[in-house]
């Protein structure tokens, strides 16, 4: 546990298991196999205790989105070795933003936009009208909801297709520019 390589690997595993929800990183036993398999003196109990201690700190820091200086103070008070302190600080510096984004994404209870595709067609003729020459954009939005059981993806509900003529596109673009104006004031 004193070697930066192993301790950093433990932290990396923690990130994958607790935040990225990587299915390959499912338990402390897996951690032991992946990282500490050659270290006979490092028992499962030691790994688990260290892991939980680190997770406790990281959870606290993530909860209040701690600045690096507050994090460093928290770690100092928690009885880690010098090398472990350095690894933890580096971990937080590198991953703080990523963890914060993950915590936000968990609370995205609404649908999110998975994919947006579009094409522009030029209507030339129809049965009623001999010459149209009207450009129209066709948009397809694929929505996804992470919080519903999406094994039986009800694709009908989640794919929206519609067309917009030039004027509608202009109006929508105006709304979008409006949003961007508001964004700049935040």
């Amino acid at each position, binding site marked *: 546990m004193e070697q930066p390589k192993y301790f950093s690997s433990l932290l990396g595993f923690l990130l994958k298991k607790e935040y990225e929800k990587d299915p390959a990183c499912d338990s402390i036993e897996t951690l032991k196999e992946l990282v500490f398999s050659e270290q006979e003196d490092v028992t499962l109990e030691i790994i688990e205790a260290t892991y939980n201690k680190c997770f406790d700190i990281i959870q606290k820091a993530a909860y*209040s*989105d701690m600045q690096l200086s507050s994090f460093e103070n928290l770690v100092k008070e928690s009885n880690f070795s010098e090398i472990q302190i350095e690894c933890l600080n580096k971990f937080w510096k590198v991953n703080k933003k990523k963890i*914060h984004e993950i*915590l936000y994404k968990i609370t995205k209870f*609404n649908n*999110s*936009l998975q994919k947006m595709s579009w094409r522009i067609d030029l209507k030339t003729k129809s049965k009623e009208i001999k010459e149209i020459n009207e450009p129209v954009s*066709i948009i397809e939005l694929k929505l996804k909801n992470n919080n519903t059981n999406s094994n039986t993806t009800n694709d009908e509900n989640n794919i929206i*297709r519609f*067309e917009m003529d030039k004027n509608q596109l202009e109006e929508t673009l105006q709304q979008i520019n409006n949003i961007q104006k508001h964004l700049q004031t935040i």
Partner: protein
Amino acid sequence: VFNIGKLVDFQWKLGVASASNHSSQLNTPFITVFIKVLDSNSKVTAHSFELTISEFKNFAQQFKDMSQLIESL
């Protein structure tokens, strides 16, 4: 024309996620978009979705690209 709906309403809201049970300091702005589509059977369906700021920037850019292309036709 056949099977492609028509956009009849586009509404939006800009919000800031302040806190959640996972974090007391979310401080993350987000945009909720609400659209209504009229399909060829005269049925109106409503949909809403949430975008992060970077997702919204991409969304906005797509519309700008479409608009530029359609202008040039």
